[in-house]
Structure formats: structure tokens, C-alpha cells
């Protein structure tokens, strides 16, 4: 057996995929463990957003008129366009995972960058929506059109008076809280996507191992789902 004797001593990464952690039996088990962990994280996220959805349910039930007036002031056209943009970013994310599964490295990078681009468009639109409501609150003098809850809140912009104006402030508290937490998730998602795109560009993934692409995909799709509920609940209350 001269050939065998001439072989170097076996190293820790011989005979298995370099991405395989040693405490897993194989890449399949490792991938399932990662996916389960990600799904448990998402389950936690559902309850994280769940508190806001529960608060929304209670207050919308109590103040339907103020919620309707607040909702009608939001531009459903902008919300509609942004919904399509975000759904589009979910499509490019799904195609990035698909490209990784069939080993198309350049396409993985391209689709992730497209996802980031569409996500940035969404956030850019959100910025202008926020600015329209926040800008009138700044500075001295009249604050006509200010829709930030507080002393400067302008209920007359919603054609509301008295207590209804106060109730509308609750709608806008929930509007900023829910869309803000959603936008924060997207802002956190962008650098993660950039990291994964860089790893993909360096050839770290293959049809056998591309779990990180799949996991960031799960996160991005979850954020899409939150918006799928926010859009009708905030922008489309009642008949328009």
C-alpha cells in the first residue's frame, strides 16, 4: 500500500463540503436546522408586530370615523404603487434564491442588487410620504397640515374637530409606528442583502450550499407579508 502511505494525514475539512459545520451530519441537516431557526425567528417577529396590530384592532374598533378620515388622507395611489414595488422585490429575491439553487452566480448577485434597488425605491417613496406629514410641524407659526401626533397636530386637515381630532392622532401614531417598524426592518435588510451579494460574488455559494441566500430571502419575504397587511389596513379603510 505505498500510495496510501504517501497520503498526507487527513485534515479536518477532508471528505466533506467546506461549508459543513462539524456538529451536523450533512449539509441537508445543517440547512434544515438553519431554516427552522429562521422560521422561529419569524414567528417571534409575527408577535413583535402583533402587539401593534392588536392595538390597531382595539382603536379602529373604538374610533372608526377618525380611522376612516385618517386613512382617506393617505394616498392610496402611492401605497398601491409601493405595494407593487415591494412585491416585485420579493419576486427578485425568490429568483436570487432560485439562481443560487441552480448555480448561476452572476444572476444571484444581479437579482439581489435588483431586490436592494426595489427596496430602496420603496423606502424613498416612504421618505416623501413621511416628509409631507412631518415638514408642516417644523418651525414656528401655523402648522397647517401637520400630521405628527402632538400639540401641532392639525385635525382640520382631516376635516375633524374636537375629540375626533384626538382620535385621529391615535391613527397617525399607529401609522408611523407600524410603517416605521416595517421600514426599519427593510433598512436592516439592505446591508444583510449587500453582504450576501458580496459572498455570492466571491463564489461562496453552490447548488449544494446556499443557505444564507435562502435565509435572507425568508426575512425579506416576511417583511413583504407585513406590508401586504399594512397596505389595506392603513390606506384602504372603508369605501373610497
Amino acid at each position, binding site marked *: 500500500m505505498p500510495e496510501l502511505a504517501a497520503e498526507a494525514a487527513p485534515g479536518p475539512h477532508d471528505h466533506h463540503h467546506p461549508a459543513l459545520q462539524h456538529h451536523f*451530519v450533512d449539509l441537508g*441537516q445543517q440547512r434544515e436546522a438553519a431554516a427552522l431557526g429562521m422560521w422561529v425567528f419569524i414567528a417571534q417577529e*409575527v408577535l413583535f408586530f402583533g402587539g401593534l396590530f392588536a392595538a390597531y384592532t382595539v382603536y379602529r*374598533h373604538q374610533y372608526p370615523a377618525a380611522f376612516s378620515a385618517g386613512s382617506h388622507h393617505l394616498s392610496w395611489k402611492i401605497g398601491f404603487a409601493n405595494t407593487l414595488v415591494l412585491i416585485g422585490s420579493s*419576486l427578485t429575491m425568490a429568483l436570487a434564491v432560485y439562481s443560487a439553487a441552480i448555480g448561476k452566480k452572476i444572476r444571484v448577485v444581479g437579482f439581489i442588487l435588483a431586490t436592494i434597488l426595489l427596496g430602496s425605491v420603496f423606502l424613498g417613496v416612504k421618505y416623501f410620504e413621511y416628509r409631507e406629514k412631518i415638514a408642516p410641524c417644523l418651525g414656528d407659526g401655523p402648522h397647517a397640515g401637520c400630521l405628527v401626533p402632538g400639540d401641532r397636530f392639525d385635525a382640520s386637515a382631516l376635516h375633524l374637530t374636537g375629540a375626533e381630532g384626538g382620535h385621529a392622532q391615535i391613527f397617525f401614531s399607529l401609522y408611523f409606528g407600524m410603517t416605521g417598524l416595517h421600514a426599519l426592518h427593510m433598512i436592516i435588510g439592505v446591508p444583510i442583502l449587500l453582504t450576501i451579494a458580496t459572498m455570492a460574488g466571491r463564489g461562496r455559494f453552490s*447548488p449544494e450550499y446556499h443557505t444564507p441566500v435562502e435565509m435572507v430571502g425568508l426575512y425579506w419575504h416576511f417583511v413583504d407579508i407585513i406590508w*401586504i397587511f399594512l397596505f389595506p389596513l392603513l390606506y384602504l379603510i372603508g369605501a373610497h
Partner: protein
Amino acid sequence: MSEHHVVSWRVYLAVFAALCVLTVITVAVTGYDFGPLNLIVALAVAITKASLVVLFFMHARYSPKLTGVVIASSIAFFLILVFLTLTDYLSRPWPLTAAG
């Protein structure tokens, strides 16, 4: 264990098209006043869209049963959160007072 289901890109395009159509539907129904039914329709469309994303984009359809258990329990606990909150709020006088 290591079976890895690769879904055709055509499935993703079909899901995307369905999501766009459902988004148009959810906007279109606000042109009609169905009273409380508007909210029911809006939620039904949103739940359908979310299900499409979970099943196809997030591969839940092709995932182990344990993934389904986690998804089902997250929905169940969210419903418990909302349901128990409402049993409290809906059985008290409104507005709540300090003596409440």
C-alpha cells in the same frame, strides 16, 4: 434529508402575477361600499396574498412538517394575543378611566 426542491422560475412569475392581480382587487373593492364587508374582503385578500408568499416564495409548501408547525403556532399565538385583548377591551366601558 438533503433532498432539495428546486421550483421552476415560472412558478415565481405566476405567484408574482397573482399577487399583482390581488393587489388590484383589494384597491378596486374600495370603490364600493359594502359596509363591514369591506374589511372582511380586504383581510381575505391580504391573507390569500400572504399565503401565496409563505407557500411559494418562502418554500413552506416544500419544507418539512416542522416548519408548518412553527408557522401554525405563530399564527395561533397572534390570534390568542388579539382575541384575549379584545375580550378585555370589549367587555369594559369605553373610554377607559383611571378607575377603569
